[in-house]
């Protein structure tokens, strides 16, 4: 039963889709979705290996920590995106080129 490598293949696919979204989209919210996809691919690997760690549960515990960190990152990033929109009237990261006026 080779479920572990299947988990890893799914996680690799999700990570590459996340890379593609981050590199190709022109919208800050979509780029954030790509980053979340990559974080979720990493969490999937943690959980898949943590299945075999019954005593210490390190995989699942650190998956929980990673989920909390991702949520905190999303909160801060969305606050920054709203500030950028208020200043520049756009959320295209390529168009935000002035640092301070």
């Amino acid at each position, binding site marked *: 039963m080779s479920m572990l490598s299947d988990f890893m293949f799914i996680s690799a696919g999700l990570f590459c889709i996340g890379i*593609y979204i981050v590199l190709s989209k022109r919208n800050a919210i979509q780029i954030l979705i790509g980053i979340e996809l990559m974080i979720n691919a990493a969490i999937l690997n943690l959980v898949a290996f943590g299945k075999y760690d019954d005593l210490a549960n390190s995989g699942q515990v650190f998956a929980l*920590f990673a989920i909390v960190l991702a949520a905190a990152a999303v909160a801060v990033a969305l606050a920054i995106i709203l500030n950028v929109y208020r200043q520049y009237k756009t959320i295209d990261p390529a168009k935000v080129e002035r640092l301070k006026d």
Partner: protein
Amino acid sequence: MNINQVLFYVMGFTALASALIVAASKNLVRSVFMFFVTLFALAGLYVFALADFVAVTQIVIYVGGVLVLMLFAFMLSNKETLNSLQNKTGNKFIAINNMAALLAAGLFLVILVNAIIKARPDGIVWIQHAQRVNPPRTDNLGNIGVNLMTNYLLPFEVISIILMMALIGAVHLSRKEEHKL
């Protein structure tokens, strides 16, 4: 091939397909709602890895918190700006523009798949040992709680402080300041 494996592959296919739709769709709302589907399928995959607590946490935090925040930010940023942003990129122009990203992601996928095949994760010594000595249990929720309060107490406290710092920072960033504009 029992029903467990069939369900597992259905979940994995759903996760990958909805992630591809997120990547392919030009409509922001559609991609956010397909991201819902990806997160639910990932929660199902966590259940197959005997991590039901992580699955429930994933649903509560991501679907309940993160996606609502994303929709909120999408509605606060103006609609017509988003429309002009989406319509300006023509169809053949975007194909040339995205070729580099597609190439990078595809090559990285080739590298990752090669590494996974070469690593042979089912033949790792400690995993075979764990499968032989103690087969994976399903009732490890209490064990997670005990470990969280004993072995991983320091990361637990550190992450609570980081979470508080992030929330205060987010509130401070999104506060309206008159003189700054």
